[in-house]
């Protein structure tokens, strides 16, 4: 057996790495949720559902705008050298997912705004005639709307994947260094967004559609989690130990109870019963999915921070 002792005593680093607190999981969750919402909204624009006046594609961009801004606020709160935040936008570092992310976020806003312009609140129309003019012009082109849908889907997918890549690029934390994390966070973002839209949609068809879609996303998510863990377990000792943090170690209880059962299996069961008309649709299922999505980000971030290369006794 190896005994390792160290005299190092740095805050956020020792006795184990814990530099990121609640801000980053919240940011990753909100980023993923917005990504899913953009994909859903974009799909509705692309597929022509925007013709329905109560289509969620008309209010999702507004909510996305708010959630994304909250997410960015969380990210900003995490920065330790806040007065230099502008440095993100004086450069582009091709190797840094964080740099990619900050530029993607910059691109997301105009795309959301383009989506938002398709339907303006009456007061805005009256106050700013220019916007009304633009909005009317946009609405006159079916192709433009479809293209806005495509761009929303594309950037949404980028955003969703980026939230995973941000972590998986950090090879120093074995739990994160899995090439499948982007898919997990994308799927979790989609399932969360589907659940959210399901929860708030005014249109019955959309509710039904999203419940079905959500079931699909949840099944894929479960499958991806399985693949991720298998991938880690069959890898090196340190990766195996990282996986064990979730399976039987420090974070196992939260992982199994909140992520797998409450976040995926129970809502999946409820929604399967609901879409097969065995039970009524219940807001409980989407609420559980969203909760599971938040906790997934916390578990992955915290367990990942705890996972390490050094084998400590």
């Amino acid at each position, binding site marked *: 057996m190896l005994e390792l*002792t160290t*005299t190092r*005593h740095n805050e956020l680093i020792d006795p184990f790495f814990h530099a990121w607190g609640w801000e980053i999981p919240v940011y990753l969750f909100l980023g993923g949720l917005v990504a899913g919402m953009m994909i859903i909204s974009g799909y509705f624009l692309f597929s022509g559902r925007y013709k329905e006046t109560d289509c969620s594609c008309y209010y999702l961009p507004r909510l996305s705008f708010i959630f994304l801004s909250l997410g960015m606020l969380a990210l900003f709160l995490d920065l330790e050298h806040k007065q230099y935040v502008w440095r993100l936008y004086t450069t582009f570092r091709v190797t840094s997912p964080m740099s990619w992310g900050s530029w993607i976020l910059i691109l997301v806003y105009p795309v959301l705004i383009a989506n938002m312009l398709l339907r303006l609140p009456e007061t805005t129309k009256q106050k700013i005639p220019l916007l009304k003019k633009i909005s009317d012009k946009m609405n006159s082109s079916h192709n433009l709307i479809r293209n806005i849908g495509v761009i929303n889907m594309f950037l949404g997918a980028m955003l969703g994947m980026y939230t995973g890549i941000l972590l998986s690029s950090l090879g120093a934390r074995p739990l994160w260094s899995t090439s499948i994390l982007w898919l997990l966070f994308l799927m979790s973002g989609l399932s969360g967004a589907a659940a959210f839209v399901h929860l708030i949609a005014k249109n019955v068809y959309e509710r039904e559609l999203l419940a079905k879609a959500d079931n699909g996303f949840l099944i894929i998510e479960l499958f991806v989690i399985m693949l991720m863990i298998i991938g880690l377990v069959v890898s090196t000792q340190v990766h195996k130990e990282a996986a064990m943090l979730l399976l039987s170690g420090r974070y196992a209880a939260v992982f199994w109870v909140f992520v797998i059962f409450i976040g995926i299996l129970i809502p999946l069961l409820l929604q399967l019963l609901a879409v097969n008309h065995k039970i009524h649709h219940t807001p409980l299922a989407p609420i559980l999915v969203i909760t599971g999505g938040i906790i997934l980000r916390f578990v992955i971030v915290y367990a990942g921070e705890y996972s390490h290369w050094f084998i400590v006794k």
Partner: protein
Amino acid sequence: MNSLSRRKFLKITGATVGAAAVITGSGKALFKGADKVNKKIVKGIKKIPTYCDVCFWKCGAIAYVKDGKLWKIEGNPKDPLSKGRLCPRGTGGVSAHYDPERLNSPLIRKKERGEEKWVAVTWGEALDYIAKKMNKIKEKYGPESMALFSHGVGGTFLKHTIKAFGSRNITAPSFAQCRGPRETGFELTFGDVVGSPERTDIKNSKCLVLIGSHLGENMHNTQVQEFAEAVEKGTSIIVVDPRFSVAASKAKYYLPIKPGTDIALLLAWMNVIVKEKLYDIDYVNKYGFGFEQFAAEISQYTPEWAYPETGIEPELIRTTAREMALYKPATLVHPGRHTTWYGDDTQRSRAIALLNALMGSWGRKGGFYLPYNYSVPKYKYPPYPKPEHEPVDNPNHKYPFAEGELLSTGIREATITGKPYPIKGWMVYATNLTQSLPNREETIKAIQNLDLLVVVDIIPSEIAGWADVVLPEVTYLERYDELNTASFRQSFISLRQPVVDAPGDQKPNWWIAKQLAERLGLEKYYPWKDIEEYLDTRLKGAGLSLNELKKKGVVTGPKEPIYFDEGIEPEFYTPSGKIEFYSLQLAEAGFDPVPKYKRPEQPPPGYFRLLFGRAPVHTFSKTQSYPLLHHQMEENVLWVNTDVAKRFGLKNGEYIKLKNTDGVISNKIKVYATERIRTDCVFMVHGFGQTSKQLKSTYLRGASDSQLITRYNTDPIMGGTGMNVNFVTFEWEV
């Protein structure tokens, strides 16, 4: 799981206030509270040579002062002790100056002793108070009733004042609680002491034997530097220790000895060496006295006899004995430094001396060299008054070979019993008596008998907490001190000089001693105006000057022969004039003329022998609050063998307490379950678990070995206190 730490919280809230909050935090924490330092700021970097005081090795150093603030301290390349490199404590000495918990002004006790309630007073008030009390003691009991406990060079002038006052009861725990048995053991054998710095020629040794000596954890600079040199050269190293020390990890042979049985091992080694005629026959014939009797005596101590005592296999004893003989005379059996272990320590030290004598290493390259010191005439003072009584520490020469220095525990005993005459005043300089003397309760009992306890210290130490008057001293970086002219390979002289101003109302020891003497009507003993005049006078007597030393820091004498082989005529200041294998002096005084082994008391079931030692970043209990050193080691841990930990259900890193066989319960301490220690003992670093409430950074951090050392075996030969005789068990109510 959430880690919104306090600092981070402040960070977030700070950010809303704006950038100003960030700028104020600019990482200058080290310089906190030091703004007052150096009123006249000199821009740029100034290098000032001085010598270190974080331990008692006194390495030559160079302090860097940047824009008027102390920046860093490096070794002085011209200094033979440091050779340009300090130990971690010396490097961290910067924070002695910056320690935010330093005493700031003289204090007089307001409530009961030990309650740590004070009134801040001026120096005049404090010194008047002390002088008045001292005079009262003198009137009532005589001047000898005033005792001084003083450790290190900084006590020079206080000793002078106390001698002028009429008392010779001046002592330091560095004798009877540390080096004493070694010096007596070597003096009885070779007629000379080992001294400090030790005259060990480690760098030239070809075989180095360390018995409990944990060089590398004990950071006496030159020794560690030479030890590393020896490691690099491939010196054959034999380490005997119940704990797998850092030194053990560098050893060719590690002997995991059962604690307290070293004499058995030493006798068996000598048995093999004599029986197999592996000793330096010429050397022994030429310089030895009583070898025949010695040889006859040890013929009974075979490795097979030693095996059940020591737990060291006979073959390993033979192999290591032959290994030593292979490299003789460059085989150095290190005499150790802190040698007060079991109460038979003089005899163990004598056995070590005899083993060295068999190797012919005394006076030989790779063994013990003959040191030189720089001759600087003493300052001429009027003669001290002749005391009416002998020193109080060793009545009727109970410990016949306690010579040269006084027994601190003897003075403590006299303070308690009032016999042979009462001790009513203690002055304590730079020694934390409740930590440095065994059995804390006895020390406190003695303090209760005092009419006056004055503590001169830099920090509010534990002993300062018991004082009537606390006098805040400046650190070594802010004062002149007596010259260092210690004996070494080459004679040298080094100067301590102030490199920065003191941050508050602290004063140097020479000033305190002189002011006190003047108040006691002893001004004729202080003919000099200030210490600069004193130092310059002494230096001029040696053909040097203070100005020269201020620039150079260290001046070395010529290289001179240090081995017999270089032409020195061997001289042994023993009664026979030879190396005494058989000691008639000891026999006449009723002791064993050749060391004998006595089996030590064993721990009761469920108990473990408490061993203690040192860590590289701290000196005893004095440095725990220095920020730089504090953060390197904030508390000590309890070394427990992993199997023992498993058996007792102790988890690594959990806090437990220790209870000794007298029912004393320690402060909480973290378990360090390790393969690096035997199963019958536990180990902790000395100096922690301090109880001074004023010293917040160290208050009850870790456990105090001293607190658990309620028992000690007194060495009948010289009065040293063997302290490794306490047994502890684990307690869980933390």
